[in-house]
């Protein structure tokens, strides 16, 4: 396969549209989608934020700026990065810990980090140096989704370049700050995107999440203070430090209380799936328009605002600002901000079954509701899909969706799985009801034959 045939993340914005002042994440990207190496990155104001910050600002200043800019976690949770950094323990006899970049992008329908990793890895490295500096980290890890072969190649090359040029290693840019980064390619579990499971996996253990508190900032990887941030979050940091918190806040204009831009995207039954860097708070309608509208002339039935673990929304929600708070108020989550578009021909039962199969399979198996509840929903959904549902199945699904909700499970995996299920049942109950064809039967109608497993 030649390089030109290889799939590349599609940013559907011309170079002319993108500028350093308005598109902090993507303004450096080339029209030809080629990797931006160190020289080109330096030409495009690369590592300027590091040069400007290290040695002249204290880590506390950096944290204050990021906090003021209110960079909210772009991995989907929306927690303030500056706030997270301010909670990382430092000083005294505490050991220097780690900054970990969560590049295990595995949320269904999400492909935004991939763009930055494949084409602009130096931006991430610069963000991690700044984050490492702010958090007094001794070492950085990029925990990369294993299937992102191209990204691994790009990041490896960038790390080598940066190290050779003195941007990594001892005494970075003469600042006295020692820091280096290693790439870790994951072995392929969705749960590794959960920050504490990611740390467990990084340590070589089962990818089980950890109870909080203690938070990773108190006791993270190998028991040391650790901060985990998403790729896009870290890629925002250089610009925030270069141009200031106020500038960053202003990027979203009047669209949202949140600052900055968001790397949005659309996939599904649209004409032109892809990515756009837009002010945070851009509406779903604009995104679908930019994606060329619905494909084949079919009508929009429903959409997921930011990945498989977010709740379904209706066409009536398209005008809403896509930001953390606004979407949260609708009983969904903005998540990663990459829309999955569903048209009128698609079955909600099949869609829910497909999603729950994924989440059930990707459960780490630690806590009971997730481990044993999700597979049950899958089996009921399969029965409904085949038209073999029993009376009470939908009520049981609702009960399970509720019991898999926040606070009841060990981590956010099951609540993430419950959200699309619950919202699909709420908005499209009739589709599920059509699968109910039997009265309530007895358990064990399908016993395992003796001697066979």
């Amino acid at each position, binding site marked *: 396969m030649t390089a030109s045939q290889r799939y590349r993340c599609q940013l559907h914005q011309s170079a002319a549209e993108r500028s350093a002042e308005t598109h902090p994440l993507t303004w450096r990207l080339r029209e030809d989608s080629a990797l931006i190496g160190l020289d080109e990155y330096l030409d495009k104001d690369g590592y300027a934020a590091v040069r400007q910050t290290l040695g002249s600002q204290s880590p506390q200043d950096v944290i204050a700026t990021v906090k003021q800019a209110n960079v909210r976690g772009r991995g989907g949770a929306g927690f303030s990065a500056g706030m997270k950094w301010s909670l990382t323990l430092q000083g005294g006899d505490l050991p220097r810990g780690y900054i970990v970049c969560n590049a295990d992008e595995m949320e269904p329908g999400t492909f935004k980090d991939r763009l930055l990793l494949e084409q602009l890895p130096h931006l991430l490295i610069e963000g991690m140096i700044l984050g490492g500096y702010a958090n007094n980290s001794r070492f950085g890890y990029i925990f990369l989704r294993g299937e992102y072969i191209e990204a691994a190649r790009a990041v490896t090359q960038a790390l080598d370049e940066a190290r050779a040029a003195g941007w990594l290693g001892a005494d970075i840019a003469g600042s006295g700050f020692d820091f280096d980064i290693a790439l870790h390619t994951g072995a392929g579990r969705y749960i590794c995107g959960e920050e504490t499971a990611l740390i467990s996996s990084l340590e070589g253990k089962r990818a089980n999440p950890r109870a909080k508190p203690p938070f990773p900032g108190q006791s993270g990887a*190998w028991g040391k203070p650790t901060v985990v941030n998403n790729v896009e979050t870290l890629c925002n940091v250089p610009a925030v430090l270069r141009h200031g918190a106020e500038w960053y806040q202003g990027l979203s204009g009047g669209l949202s209380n949140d600052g900055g831009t968001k790397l949005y995207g659309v996939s599904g039954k649209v004409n032109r799936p892809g990515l756009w860097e837009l002010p945070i708070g851009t509406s779903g309608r604009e995104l679908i328009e930019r994606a060329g509208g619905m494909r084949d002339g079919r009508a929009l039935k429903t959409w997921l605002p930011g990945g498989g673990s977010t709740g379904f929304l209706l066409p009536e929600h398209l005008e809403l600002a896509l930001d953390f708070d606004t979407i949260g108020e609708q009983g969904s989550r903005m998540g990663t901000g990459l829309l999955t578009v569903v048209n009128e021909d698609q079955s909600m039962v099949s869609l829910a079954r497909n999603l729950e199969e994924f989440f059930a399979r990707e459960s780490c*198996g630690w806590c009971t509701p997730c481990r*044993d509840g999700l597979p049950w929903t899958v089996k009921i959904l399969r029965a409904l899909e085949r038209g073999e549902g029993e009376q009470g199945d939908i009520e049981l699904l609702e009960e399970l969706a509720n019991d898999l909700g926040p606070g009841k499970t060990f981590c956010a995996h099951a609540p993430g799985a419950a959200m699309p299920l619950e919202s699909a049942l709420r908005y499209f109950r009739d589709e599920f009801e059509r699968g109910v064809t039997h009265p309530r039967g007895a358990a064990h109608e399908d016993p395992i034959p003796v001697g066979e497993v």
Partner: protein
Amino acid sequence: MATIHVDGRAYEVDGADNLLQACLSLGLDVPYFCWHPAMGSVGACRQCAVKQYKDADDTQGKLVMSCMTPASDDSWIAIEDEEAREFRASVVEWLMVNHPHDCPVCEEGGHCHLQDMTVMTGHDRRRYRFRKRTHRNQYLGPFVAHEMNRCITCYRCVRFYNDYAGGEDLGAFGANDNVYFGRHQDGVLESEFSGNLTEVCPTGVFTDQTHSDRYTRKWDLQFAPSICHQCAVGCNTSPGERYGDIRRIENRYHGEVNRHFLCDRGRFGHGYVNRDDRPRCPEWRSQASDESMTLEIDAALDRGADVLRSARRVIGIGSPRASLESNHQLRELVGAANFSTGIVAREQACLERMARLSRESGLPTPTLRDVEEHDAILVLGEDLIQSAARLGLSVRQAVLGRREELAEARGIPAWNAEAVKTLGQDNYHPLFVAYPTATGLDGIAEASWALAPDDIARLGFAIAHVIDAAAPAVADLDEATRLEAERIASALLAARRPLVISGGSLGSEAVIEAAGNIARALSRRARDGGLILVRNEANSTGLELLGGQPLEWALDELNTQMADAVVILENDLYHRLPRERVDSALDLAEVVVVLDHQRTATWNRAHLGLPAASFAEGDGTLVSLEGRAQRFFQVFDPRYIRPESRIHESWRWLHAVRAGMLREDVSDITLDAVTLDCARRTPALAGIVEAAPGSDYRVEGLKLAREPHRYSGRTAMRSHLNVDEPRTPQDPDTPFTFSMEGYNGFERPRKDVAFAWAPGWNSPQAWNKFTDEVGGHLRAGDPGVRLLHPLPGGYDYVREIPSSFARRDGQWQVVVLPRLFGGEETSSRSAPISERAAPAALILSADDAQRLDVVDGATLVLETDTGRVALPLRLDAALPAGIVGVPAGLDAAFSSGDWGSLFIGPEAGLDAMGPETGAHSKGPETGPLANDDSGRDERADGGEERP
């Protein structure tokens, strides 16, 4: 303390607990699975959900997992909240999704925590209608059976096995609803504590394989509070009997000793009680060469009285595996001047030094629970996992305790198990081990040294000298050892509570005294330390306190014909001294009377053999290595199912024999009377009367039940013998009944609990109902009484320090290495233990083997003045050159410190290595091997030339 409000009532609790611990300690029922009092909380199962409110005015509340929520002051929670109840019922429903409905054929049934919790949460209707997930099971060895389909994925097994006990061959595999707990492939579980999986597992995944062949439900077993007889630690056990056999050993909670866990020798080593070849009736033979004949009791007593009465002088040989009462009664029979402890002289000398140090070292002996509170530990000359395994497990917890200290400094509560582990990583309290080879605790030791016994002692003396310059210095100490001694000494001095552990495993008085000097030095430096000394057998400590001559003296009295009769109590002399030595003494004895519960080589020499009770059929008192006198109680009456049986406690036999000798009528005798008499006659044992309540003890006017109240089949179990149901056997010796009648509850505090049961709690988790707080002490206090206490006084150091170990040309020093499996006499007679025991081998350093040009597995013959044995060679990377390791329990001809020669042996005859059939080779196939290089004709390096 903190005040928490539960369902509207205020309670005072320990604010350092989590809410689950606090509620359980209050006696409230909250269901749980993944939490365990010894292993803390991980929040995995979600079963212990309760509603928590912000304050008194909050009516909304939210669900929290009580195990992961601190019991902070002014907490408001509801267990009975509707949402919480429904969620808890849902959790059990999920756990049951794949759980087979095989309770009727499941060996966990009846003491299953999952059953209890399912009933407690009210889940009783199955809604899951789809196919269940199934697994394949594994062969895990002779101890533990595996049935993975029952698994509810609570993760307790791997947390115990790996985190708590340090095992490495059990893991969690797979993900989602397909998590598998097992080994990477079929095979024997390596951990010496694997049996605890059967109690840690809340359901029937891991069950007792030794019980499986002849299985009985817990409610159909008859139990008594017992003490493990398989080593000197004194773990409390609950043996369960049915149809005259011990079916299983369960852990009996003791807040200061074993708490929740036993070692595998203790749990699975009881099979000797059930052997078909056990003597069950008196046996008589006039001549050693005659076939024995069976006698009735009266005839046996008459013969015994007659032959002993006509003897010139009777020697009594006691036993450290028999009760104090039986030993005492033997001493009464023969007189103190004629009484031997049955322990060989060298071991007895060690025991005497240890007993003195327990009083006169200046440091107290900690309990096992207290061992876990120490923060620097030195082990001299013991591989604790082999010689006192349960103590080794406590040492492991002490070493891991560093993590909890680090966590506390970071505000992480000790119960937050995974967080403590994450923060602590491999930070341990310092542990130093010196032993001739690698030990089971080396993996968590800061440093370990493989040294010859004399060098272990020298290291110890050197440490003492560093701690206190007044302690004698070690002459000719090499610089490296001096530096190591300084390193260890500074770690002990830096500790809040340093602990020194040594013992008699190597048979070296110098090692023990070196430990004693360190203890004295620490004591003089006013350190709040401890000294714990490992004894060999269940009642070694007690026999030393009782006093008596060593075994060699007894044989000498016979050999020199100073005595012509001997009464041997529960002791196989062939296990202690070379065969020729024992044979010659017994050949000369006119009368040999043996009391034992095993058909040993010694029993086979008896003119009169009297069938003694094992721990299962008799009562008595043992003194553990910490100096704790503990009573074990008869589990069942052997005549109930086997009316032909004439088994009695040795002390009862000996009382009757004595009456016969004195031509008196045999008066009634009870345990209380013997115990009291023993205490009166031996001032050091005065306290043993208090070790347990007497037979007149009652709770609410009732005796205590040995059988659960659901015990079934009593009217039918003897119907193959007689349809008349006999009267329930009476027990004049103890407060227990051989019946389900009697008190069995938990509300009234009591120390001696036959089996733990509380309404709704049928599993071992019922112990939480008997303790003052979960993981605490029995509410009535923990059983037993300490006999050894530090006595104030100015004790001087021991000044005899051995010179350093010097290799000899063509000679190897023998070191007998204790073995958990196969190294102890009675448990070795149990099939699962002998199956588990590693093949016997001679152990040699790789250097020596290379020099001798022998390879791993080659047959090697060891010959000393007292014996000769041919065994395969096993290379040992750690063992010092010049030493040959011999496994304990193999052949009494060898003892530590002997010197012997090695030969390359014959290839045949290696498979019969049992204690009775040690392979004695016919003769050397080659000349003796030399352990220097002179015998080798080529030298690789072409270096210095030898003249």
